[in-house]
């Protein structure tokens, strides 16, 4: 069982993700804006962070990811995106986009479970 933080401004996405991840035995905490999300990660130190790319402003998710990395948070980040491959904006994990994995919306429960499990396993092996 792992503690997972979801930061997304869409309550339905939070609810859907929580349902999927809870069913796999994880404990899910959530925030719906950048500031609360940042405090949530600092206070609760989750094992995985799920971030939406677009919140109030496009790329909000990227900025939060960069801020977290600057502050020394090494927790794996999974990013929700609705603009990736479908329209040819290919994101790649790297310095500019400091996230570990992407999940494209609409969220497929199986894909989400699988990617979360992979990231958590990698993180445990890394330690």
């Amino acid at each position, binding site marked *: 069982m792992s503690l997972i933080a979801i930061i997304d401004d*869409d309550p339905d*996405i939070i609810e859907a993700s929580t349902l999927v991840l809870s069913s796999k035995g994880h404990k899910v905490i959530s925030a719906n804006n950048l500031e609360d999300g940042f405090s949530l990660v600092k206070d609760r130190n989750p094992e995985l962070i799920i971030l939406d790319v677009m919140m109030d402003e496009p790329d909000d998710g990227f900025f939060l990811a960069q801020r977290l990395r600057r502050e020394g948070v090494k927790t794996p980040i999974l990013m929700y995106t609705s603009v990736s491959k479908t*329209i*040819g904006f290919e994101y790649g994990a790297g310095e500019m986009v400091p996230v570990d994995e992407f999940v494209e919306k609409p969220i497929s429960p199986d894909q989400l479970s699988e990617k979360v499990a992979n990231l958590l396993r990698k993180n445990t092996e890394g330690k």
Partner: protein
Amino acid sequence: MISLVPKWAHNYDEFWNTIRRRNLWFIKLRYAAVLVLIGFVFVGQYLMDFYFTDQQVNALLMIALSILIYNSLIHAIRLKIGCNPDSFNCMHLSLIQMLLDLTALMLLVYYTGTIFSPLNVFFIFHMVIGSLILPNYLVYVICGLIISIYSSLIYYQYIGALESHYISGLYLSPIAHNLNYNIVFVLVFSFLMLMTVILANRIAGNLLKREGQLREMLDKLDEQERTKQKHIMGIVHEIKSPITAAESLVDLILQNYLGPISEPVETKLLRVRTRLDDSLYLINNILKISKLRLLNESFTNDVDINTIIRKLIDDNIESANKKRIKINFLQQNVENTIVEGEASLLELALSNVLGNSIKYTETGGRIDIKLAIDQKYLSVSVVDDGIGIPEKEVSSIYKQFFRASNTRRYEAEGSGLGLSLVKEIIQHHNGIINVKSPSGIGAKERPGTNMTIKLPFVQRELDKNKQRVLTPLHGGL
């Protein structure tokens, strides 16, 4: 090296083209001038009773020969020099031509009567040309030089320090004139020269300014189009968010995360999912169009069209089988099926064409996909014996949100966005799209459609830094 080129024109190809075109035009004109000058000497001498002294004939013919020699040299140099604003370029060549021409003209005027030479009006002609080509200050300097040299010649001839070369036969007798005549002539000549330069410079300046404004406006329009596309992308994303959220929730229910569901509920939820998928497909297509318009990029990846077609046939075989449609893939001596482009976009375009074909071909129909080479293009034709397109509507099919009138009774859902997207993608690949109905394999009641897409094997690189070019005006100047 003195820069004769305004800053804005450094990368403006049309400016350089104009200068090169004008240079060539003057070179041709100068060859004609040589002939006219030789003609003037001989016709004047033998047909019009002009009396040229030997010195005059020699001088005039020498001048004609010099013009011919320097003009030939310029003609040869013109082909070798480029349009680099920092080195010797065609603008410098223009200045040299102008100075050589004015020297030749001054000598001609001197040997044909100076103050009484009928050729002195050509100074005005050169001032107009200079104003069109050279920077203002240079034309004023040249104008000043001509006025001083010409006045000096007149003065020194008046006081007898220089020999005069009148053409007898042009005047009744050697003309006696006093200093006042010379002064009035020089004043009028100077005034005329200056006024010509001022007016011509202003007109040329205004023309350039107008052209600049026009280019600015066109750039602004481009910028506005980009802003509009960004705005559309923003709005479409806003619409996409709730749809993706809804679909995520529907998926959860369908996969029993909230407990078991009854079969009728599952059937309806599956229908909800299909409709949401359709909307997302449409939304993603709109986003793709906006992105294409927003980023003016050229695609240079190798894309194997053969592979794409085979994949698309695999993807669509199930829906074709359901309607008992037979898909034939025909290749006619095609060795190379690789073009330059962007695979995901070309797949989307071809998938739209094939999808349409299956949608509007009736049960038991036939679809031929033909791959062929047509000169520099790889040609893909999707030919069916489906419902076809009414003749009057063929030209409208690429309009956004257009659906042909005979498709409306079909159950098949259609947004009318597909073909406009296909056309946009193909145009971005410098390709050609062509539609024919009847297709040639259909029957009277099912005329069928033939969609042919031609893609160039090699793409032209788009130069992003290139300035917008206005359509050049024709003619020598």
